């Protein structure tokens, strides 16, 4: 491998000529030929021998232009292991006699591949040039790396993109450098493949297609009615679908079945978004290209997608519709070159608004198998139709279209963004594609890959920053549409809230500091980007007697951080005690909007409160195991619902007696968690694997009198909030507070007795005074010890 650069190499000389012959120069040469030709004619007429000089010039220009067209502009590599033999000509021709690393970097940036990598990955030209200047990037090192990279990536030449990779790779801390841009080196190699793919598409488009010519359709029939109610599939776009291995296989099977002697029908079965329509378009493109090896029966056939809504609106009556459809089928069959496509085919098999059940008409046609038909249908819809009509399922040749994997989705997105960039006048960074894949798989449920990723990319265009769509734009798109928080906290007020979360919670809730701290820490980890993203934000089991604040903490957290108690999803598990209640838990939202999965799909970023969890049926607890561990649950439609942006709080009164006993015996409850957990397991109240899945099991202690005193203040604050409209303020003396505390204190029942006493004493007193007219707007009501004694005494 020769890593020296030879300026006088033949290929280098040719490249320099290529670089000089820019499009403008070639245009001028052509213009020159034209003008010289006119001059020649004139000189011929006047009899001047200068005419020969003009012809000499025209010949010379012609030689140059033809040489450029047939050799220079695509100088083939020599594959001899030398720099000059392998470097792309548009870079080779720009290098000076003794290029330094900056010269090489600048030449790489002038090539489309180099510019592509630097701009798509967000590096910027200056950053890249600085990298080229480091000592490890001497010209020899760059050439060595570039030749290695070319071999590894198996590219035809050392293009600009390969050169950029070589320069970056020579930087010792390149992984750290790339991590700063949320990338790794594999992403850059993917960029090289992407750039080469774009050029291969351009090559493919520029090659003339064999479409059959001007008389292609003379042997086929006219289809005026079909044209009115159908749309011919566009065969001019080169879709990537034909390049994906999965789709190539499907299209090959379609060609085989539709040109066979058997039943000429295909049912493409797959969820929305997997690319069924794209497969049909690729199929249409392939059979229209005479260069492909297509059986003569199918070659140059036209694929027409029938519009169900146009048909139904044109023929609303049942008899009329069947007649019209029958007429269209006859027309299509007689034409002999039509492949009929029923997109969303279930619309033709069920009676509903916008659809009509034409099974009686369609089934015999499908069974006869002479009219070429493609049905594109959702998996669930196909199962439902087959259940009603089993002969239909047997008649169709089904082909499953499965959701694309990461590499396939990336390929599709890379092609789609060229259209999106034109449509929305934006530019997508590569990182946006990766983020779109990741976030769409978590948050978009009504489509499968690659459709869901492409949809998210399209939504992200609205959040472009100065026309640039980055990962942040994609995150914003999800945050705004799904009302979740994905990006790390960067606004000052949010950061302040997170850092002071405990004190904010304690404004509304008294005591239970360990539990408050555990929950606040989980949120801080999540919003700082420190936590494991494949699990819920935090999973907590709160144990303790009734009325001590387990539910109140969940409500307070929802109010303080999740923007209101409306963003709390509450499930009382004493309603899930039956064997069949698991189905209610994971029901589809259309059937049961209050199911857990339906609510989480709507509000992924929320507090989930599972109250009285010990009362749930064991099957329900088993279903919840996966939620606690991996943060996902499949609903009845087999969709994966993500709980990875929720805090899950389960509450239970189990072990309350044991807690009270331990307190009475003088145990420090915070250190006795293990004893309580062991008791719960040994008494079979909870399985060990269930308890083990919680991040924290926190014991809530019975409230002390001092804490109840503070609760009185909170309750009075709540009463004053209620009376704020009427401009009445309730005040309570310290002695009265002590009396209330004594009256409401019950360590078995927590704060609820206190609440009932306050209601009886304070609220009833206020109500009586207001109704008796003893209190005017702007006045104060003072609750004294006497008031309390007189009320409690009654």
């Amino acid at each position, binding site marked *: 491998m020769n890593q020296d650069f030879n300026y006088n190499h*033949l290929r280098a*000389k040719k490249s320099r000529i290529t670089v000089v012959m820019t499009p403008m120069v070639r245009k001028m040469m052509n213009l020159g030929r034209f003008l010289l030709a006119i001059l020649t004619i004139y000189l011929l007429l006047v*009899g*001047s*021998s*200068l*005419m*020969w*000089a003009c*012809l*000499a*010039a025209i*010949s*010379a220009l*012609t*030689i140059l232009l*033809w*040489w450029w067209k*047939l*050799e220079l502009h695509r100088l083939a590599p020599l594959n001899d292991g030398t720099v000059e033999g392998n470097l792309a000509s548009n870079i080779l021709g720009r290098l000076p006699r003794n290029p330094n690393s900056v010269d090489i970097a600048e030449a790489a940036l002038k090539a489309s591949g180099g510019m592509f990598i630097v701009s798509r990955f967000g590096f910027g030209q200056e950053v890249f040039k600085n990298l080229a200047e480091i000592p490890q990037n001497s010209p020899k090192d760059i050439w060595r790396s570039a030749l290695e990279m070319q071999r590894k990536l198996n590219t035809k030449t050392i293009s600009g993109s390969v050169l950029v990779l070589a320069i970056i790779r020579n930087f010792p801390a390149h992984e750290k450098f790339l991590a700063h841009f949320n990338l790794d080196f594999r992403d850059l190699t993917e960029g090289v493949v992407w750039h080469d793919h774009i050029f291969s598409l351009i090559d493919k488009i520029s090659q*003339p297609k*064999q*479409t*059959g*010519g*001007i*008389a*292609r*359709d*003379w*042997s*086929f*029939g*006219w289809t005026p009615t079909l044209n009115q109610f159908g749309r011919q599939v566009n065969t001019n776009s080169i879709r990537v679908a034909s390049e994906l291995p999965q789709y190539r296989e499907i299209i090959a099977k379609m060609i085989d079945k539709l040109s066979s002697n058997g039943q000429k029908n295909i049912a493409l079965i797959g969820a929305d978004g997997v690319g069924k329509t794209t497969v049909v378009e690729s199929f249409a493109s392939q059979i229209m290209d*005479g260069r492909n090896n297509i059986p003569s029966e199918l070659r*140059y056939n036209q694929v027409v997608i029938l519009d169900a809504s146009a048909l139904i609106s044109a023929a609303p009556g049942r008899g009329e519709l069947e007649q019209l459809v029958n007429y269209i089928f006859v027309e299509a069959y*007689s*034409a*002999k070159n039509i492949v009929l496509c029923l997109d969303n085919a279930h619309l033709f098999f069920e009676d509903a608004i916008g659809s009509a059940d034409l099974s009686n008409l369609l089934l015999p046609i499908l069974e006869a198998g002479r009219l070429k038909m493609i049905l594109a249908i959702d998996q669930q819809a196909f199962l439902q139709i087959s259940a009603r009509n089993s002969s239909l399922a047997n008649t169709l040749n089904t082909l499953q279209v499965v959701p694309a994997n990461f590499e396939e989705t990336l390929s599709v997105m890379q092609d789609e963004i060229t259209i999106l960039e034109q449509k929305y006048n934006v530019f997508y960074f590569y990182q946006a594609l990766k983020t779109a894949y990741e976030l769409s798989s978590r948050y978009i449920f009504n489509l499968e890959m690659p459709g869901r990723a492409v949809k998210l990319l399209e939504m992200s265009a609205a959040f472009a920053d100065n026309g640039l769509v980055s990962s942040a734009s994609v995150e914003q798109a999800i945050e705004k549409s799904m009302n979740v928080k994905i990006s790390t906290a960067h606004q000052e007020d949010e950061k302040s809230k997170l850092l002071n979360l405990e004190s904010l919670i304690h404004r509304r809730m008294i005591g239970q500091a360990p539990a408050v701290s555990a929950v606040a820490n989980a949120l801080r980890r999540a919003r700082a980007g420190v936590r494991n993203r494949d699990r819920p934000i935090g999973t907590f089991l709160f144990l303790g007697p009734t009325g001590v604040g387990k539910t109140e903490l969940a409500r307070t957290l929802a109010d303080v951080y999740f923007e209101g108690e409306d963003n709390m999803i509450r499930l009382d598990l004493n309603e899930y005690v039956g064997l069949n209640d698991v189905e209610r838990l994971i029901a589809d939202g259309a059937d049961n909007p209050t199911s857990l999965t339906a609510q989480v799909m709507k509000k992924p970023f929320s507090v989930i409160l599972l109250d009285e969890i010990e009362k749930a049926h064991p099957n329900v607890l088993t279903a919840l195991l996966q939620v606690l561990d991996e943060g996902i649950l499949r609903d009845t439609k087999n969709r994966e619902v993500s709980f990875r942006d929720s805090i899950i709080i389960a509450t239970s009164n189990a072990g309350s007696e044991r807690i009270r006993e331990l307190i009475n015996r003088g145990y420090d409850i915070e250190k006795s968690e293990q004893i309580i957990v062991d008791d719960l397991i040994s008494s079979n109240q909870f399985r060990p694997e269930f308890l083990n899945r919680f991040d924290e099991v926190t014991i809530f202690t019975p409230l002390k009198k001092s804490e109840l005193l503070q609760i009185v203040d909170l309750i009075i604050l709540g009463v004053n909030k209620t009376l704020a409209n009427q401009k009445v303020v309730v005040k309570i003396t310290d002695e009265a507070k002590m009396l209330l505390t004594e009256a409401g204190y019950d360590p078995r029942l927590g704060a609820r007795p206190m609440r009932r006493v306050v209601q009886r004493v304070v609220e009833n007193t206020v109500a009586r005074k207001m109704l008796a007219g003893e209190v005017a707007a702007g006045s104060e009501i003072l609750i004294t010890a006497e008031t309390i004694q007189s009320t409690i005494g009654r």
Partner: protein
Amino acid sequence: MLMAFISWWYSKGWLARAVTILDSLEKSIDYFSLPLLIKTWFAPFRQIDAGRLVNGSIEQRFRKLVDRTFSRIIGAILRTVVMLAGVFYIALRALLGLLMLVFWAALPILPIVFVILTFSGWMPHFNLKIPEIKIPEIIKMNNKTQIPRGQR
């Protein structure tokens, strides 16, 4: 460099030029749909009356046969015209292509030849003979033309 250029021009370059000529011929054959037209020369035009009559009377069947034959004749005529036009066009292109290949061989020498001709001063001469047009005898009187009495 000059040797490399000449070597390329008379080997790979010539071949590349021949390939582009063949590509354009292929494109022309496809444009005029020659293979399809040959295959379907006598097929009913646009499938008019191509369908079979089921359970028809003899009269209906005969009428169908006549209509279909007529459709075939129309189709055959149209197809023949297009094929002939296509063959003529392709033959012309092929001839031009052949001339181009010959011209390719001569082209590198032409600039030198033209420069020599420039200095030699030689110019081609073209004898443009305008043929005499015979006109009927006209009676000229005082430079005026007059139509003879008998021909008024």
